């Protein structure tokens, strides 16, 4: 599967072999416990400093002028009036030296520029200003005189495919058209007892992290430092260096506390480069914070999808064929729109064909959004599975249990572990599935129903991470890792790994992270890979520290290393615990003052793939007079391998499901496609994300741990994304169970619910 990171995929095949032989953990003493975060107090006291909170001496503020038209060409641009406004220190445009930076790559070639005179969506960057205050910058940006030649635009994916549609890029609007699969679908359908066909639609969703998108750029001579709210400092650094033609060592990117990203802050954004250019032009630090409205328009979204799915099944519940046609648009630039993955991988099926169509439209470019493509695909596939189960009169859980694939059918690779069976059965048990399904659904205007859906995640992680653990003379520790903590609890989990190995209490571990100037390369916090990539590296580093300590102790105790054990921060001969030496009493440590352990993530297991699985269950109430759907109860059973910290684990699951409620019921970017082509609900008032009242009081998390000893040295698999994949589909299936009506277009707004009910009544 294509995972749309905006920098070249690193080469995971060229990793050094593991330096040590690390055994899987048996019983753990720290890992897995429900421990509060190591930085909990900072987060609840207002002292955690986010990029948005920061200011540097002499700092200017930047603002960006964006094209107001969905499709236009800049014919004249005059910055004279803006330059003369109070407080303005710089105005940059496409004509500014150094600003001709290629952008939005398709393969190796750029499809646009930092400031492109051909504007392809309402929001494309045209010019930028730096001024003494944010207000002055915004006013000056508005005062830039621009004349546009307004061009016809297209925002409907299907229309964009037609030859009459205005061409957004040279060569037309088709970005990709690919067919893949296995077996013979026609034969599969011929052998089926039941064949169903349905078209589903999922909306364009906006990430809307609570902290908006923000950068502060500052130059010291030829060296650039950027404080930036993002999900992976090393990716941002690499792309920034490439854009500005600087060596990596001249670009330092720092991100400590950040207020959420969900994929939208994985890649380098234009505003970051613009801040760097403005800072260079003015020789002063420049901060650019996008407005909330801009955050809805120009920094990514989950592309809408139309999915036509045909499926065949035998009466005994054997799937015989799946045939799917996907259409989606990542907006005006190559950004990634569709995912066919679940259709190809989730269930055992010998005959599969998927056709994936991606087009350009005049709308804001998409970006990876929590499990790119997956909840959309689940929306279609899992509703189809539900419909098939109904048709052959089989319980939906039983139907899925019958069709579990024990290997990845896309490339015939076995899984290191698969807990999908337990997710389905234990989840059903925790939910009280059979009883809940048998309960009456109500006769009045309020109907109740239950539904479920399954899912899996596709990315095994990018296994390159280097971590340094330093142990000081008093036995306290510094953990130096490049990984970002985007709110998931990375710092806490990694410190717990150190504590597990070295017996150091959490409050004696200081963490330095996500700073390209002081920490080591680690993949970004996206793709549900942070724990399973960085935690093994942390473990390796801690074990390396332990090895060196044992050597020092061996010299002091005059015993061979093999006779010594490391326990609770002390080293002792296995046969003479009374001779234990505390770390602080190790003479060799006092001499050196510091022990440095370097740890690297090991490569992935050969010939196998480690992926997480999930099943979720929902109970809903539908008011058939108003169309209102309320989610009453959710149960999530996840095989994400080992639970590293129960609190952060549950949080990921509940948070992922809340987002799923948004996809299922409320979230949808609306474009004014008939007239202006603009986003009309670019704010949280009109774009509804779930509030405390939309999320059920009753939520349960059922961790399934298959005790995977092959996936990596911690046994943990990814969690952040799987938690979001099945929720919306489970809700849709529950709505069907409650009402007998299938709503195939997400989100199930009151309007859509009422139309579907009216349609059934024949109105």
């Amino acid at each position, binding site marked *: 599967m294509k995972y749309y990171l905006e920098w070249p995929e690193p080469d995971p095949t060229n990793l050094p072999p593991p330096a040590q032989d690390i055994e899987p953990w048996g019983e753990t003493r720290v890992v897995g416990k*429900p421990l*509060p*975060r190591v930085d*909990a*107090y*900072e*987060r*609840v*006291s*207002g*002292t*955690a*400093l*986010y990029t*948005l*909170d920061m*200011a540097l001496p002499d700092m200017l503020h930047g603002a960006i002028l964006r094209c107001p038209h969905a499709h236009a060409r800049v014919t004249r641009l005059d910055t004279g009036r803006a330059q003369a406004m109070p407080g303005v220190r710089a105005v940059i445009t496409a004509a500014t030296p150094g600003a001709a930076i290629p952008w939005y790559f398709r393969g190796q070639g750029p499809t646009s520029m930092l400031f492109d005179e051909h504007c392809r969506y309402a929001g494309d960057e045209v010019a930028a200003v730096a001024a003494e205050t944010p*207000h002055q910058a915004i006013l000056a940006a508005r005062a830039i005189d621009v004349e546009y030649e307004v061009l016809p635009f297209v925002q409907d994916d299907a229309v964009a495919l037609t030859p009459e549609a205005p061409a957004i890029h040279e060569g037309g609007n088709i970005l990709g058209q690919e067919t893949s699969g296995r077996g013979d679908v026609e034969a599969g359908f011929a052998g089926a007892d039941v064949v169903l066909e349905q078209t589903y639609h999922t909306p364009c969703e906006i*990430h*809307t*992290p*609570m*902290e*908006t998108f923000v950068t502060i750029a500052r130059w010291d001579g030829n060296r650039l430092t950027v404080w930036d709210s993002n999900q992976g400092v090393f990716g941002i650094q690499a792309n920034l260096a490439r854009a500005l033609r600087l060596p990596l060592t001249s670009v330092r990117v720092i991100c400590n*506390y*950040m*207020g*959420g990203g*969900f994929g939208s802050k994985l890649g380098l954004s234009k505003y970051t480069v613009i801040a760097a250019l403005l800072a260079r032009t003015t020789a002063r630090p420049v901060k650019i914070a996008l*407005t*909330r409205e801009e955050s809805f328009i120009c920094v990514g979204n989950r592309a809408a999808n139309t999915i036509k799915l045909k499926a065949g099944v035998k009466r005994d519940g054997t799937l015989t064929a799946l045939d799917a046609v996907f259409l989606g648009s990542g907006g005006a630039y190559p950004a990634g729109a569709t995912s066919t993955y679940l259709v190809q991988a989730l269930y055992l099926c010998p005959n599969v064909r998927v056709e994936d169509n991606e087009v350009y439209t005049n709308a804001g470019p998409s970006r990876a959004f929590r499990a790119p493509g997956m909840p959309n695909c689940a929306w279609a596939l899992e509703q189809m599975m539900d419909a098939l189960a109904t048709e052959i009169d089989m319980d939906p859980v039983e139907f899925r249990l019958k069709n579990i694939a024990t290997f990845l059918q896309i490339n015939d690779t076995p899984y290191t572990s698969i807990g999908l069976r337990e997710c389905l059965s234990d989840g059903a048990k925790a939910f009280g599935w059979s009883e809940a399904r048998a309960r009456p659904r109500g006769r009045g205007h309020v109907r109740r129903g239950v539904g479920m859906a399954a899912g899996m995640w596709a990315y095994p992680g990018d296994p390159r991470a280097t971590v340094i653990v330093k142990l000081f003379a008093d036995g306290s520790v510094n953990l130096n890792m490049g990984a970002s903590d*985007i*709110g*998931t*609890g990375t710092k806490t989990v990694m410190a717990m790994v150190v504590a597990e190995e070295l017996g150091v209490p959490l409050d004696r571990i200081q963490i330095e992270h996500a700073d390209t100037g002081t920490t080591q390369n680690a993949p970004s916090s996206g793709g549900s890979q942070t724990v399973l990539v960085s935690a093994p590296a942390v473990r390796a580093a801690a074990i390396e520290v332990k090895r060196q300590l044992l050597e020092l102790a061996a010299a002091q105790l005059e015993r061979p290393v093999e006779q010594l054990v490391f326990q609770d921060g002390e080293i002792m001969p296995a046969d003479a615990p009374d001779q234990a030496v505390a770390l602080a009493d190790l003479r060799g440590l006092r001499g050196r003052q510091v022990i440095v352990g370097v740890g690297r993530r090991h490569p992935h297991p050969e010939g196998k793939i480690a992926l997480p699985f999930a099943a979720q269950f929902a109970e809903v109430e539908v008011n058939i007079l108003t169309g209102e759907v309320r989610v009453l109860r959710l149960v999530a059973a996840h095989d994400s391998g080992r639970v590293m910290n129960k*609190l*952060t684990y*549950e*949080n990921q*699951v*509940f*948070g*992922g*499901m*809340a*987002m799923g409620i948004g996809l299922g019921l409320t979230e949808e970017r609306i474009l004014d496609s008939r007239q202006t082509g603009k986003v009309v609900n670019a*704010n*949280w*008032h009109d774009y509804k*994300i*779930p*509030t*405390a*009242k939309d*999320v059920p*009081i009753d*939520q349960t998390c059922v961790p399934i741990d298959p005790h995977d000893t092959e996936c990596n040295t911690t046994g943990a698999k990814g969690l952040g994304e799987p938690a979001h994949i099945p929720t919306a589909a489970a809700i849709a299936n529950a709505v069907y169970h409650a009402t007998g009506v299938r709503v195939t277009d997400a989100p199930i707004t009151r309007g859509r619910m009422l139309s579907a009910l009216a349609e059934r009544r024949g109105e």
Partner: protein
Amino acid sequence: MRCWERPLIEIIRLSVNGDSHEIGVPSHYTLLETLRYVLGLTGSKQGCDKGDCGACTVLLDGLPTLSCILPVQEAIGRQVTTIEGLADPDGPHALQDALDLTGGAQCGFCTPGILMSAAALLNVNSSPTRQEIREALSGNLCRCTGYTKIYEAVELAARALREQRPPAEVLRS
């Protein structure tokens, strides 16, 4: 005074977390801008700057208020309490401890606003039901947590305050 008659910068007296400040502020500033950019109290967050998200919630004479849409002049002569003033010198507020213990803060950006809304609730209702908690927090958006752990934290804090015991002890019992 009408807004266009105001001077560009006004000298005002503002009481924040018990401290009285005499400060010059641009007269178009909101309370949030004053807190963050004049007083340097960045704990109150700027999530949307238009009254939609609750990240900027502070207490104004004990009542939860969206500081991003409150002209700073409206806060003159009233007691402003921000997240920085929630703890007292003896230690964190029970809500802060409880939120740590349940893990109710993820990225933490919504957290200050949520804590202030929850504190306002507990000020007037010492044993809120989950329904009441949801009602009180419904103006505070959180994109990360799914709210569940936040309800648990508010319940835990309420109990701790009622029983006059630290939340950690209540959790263990």
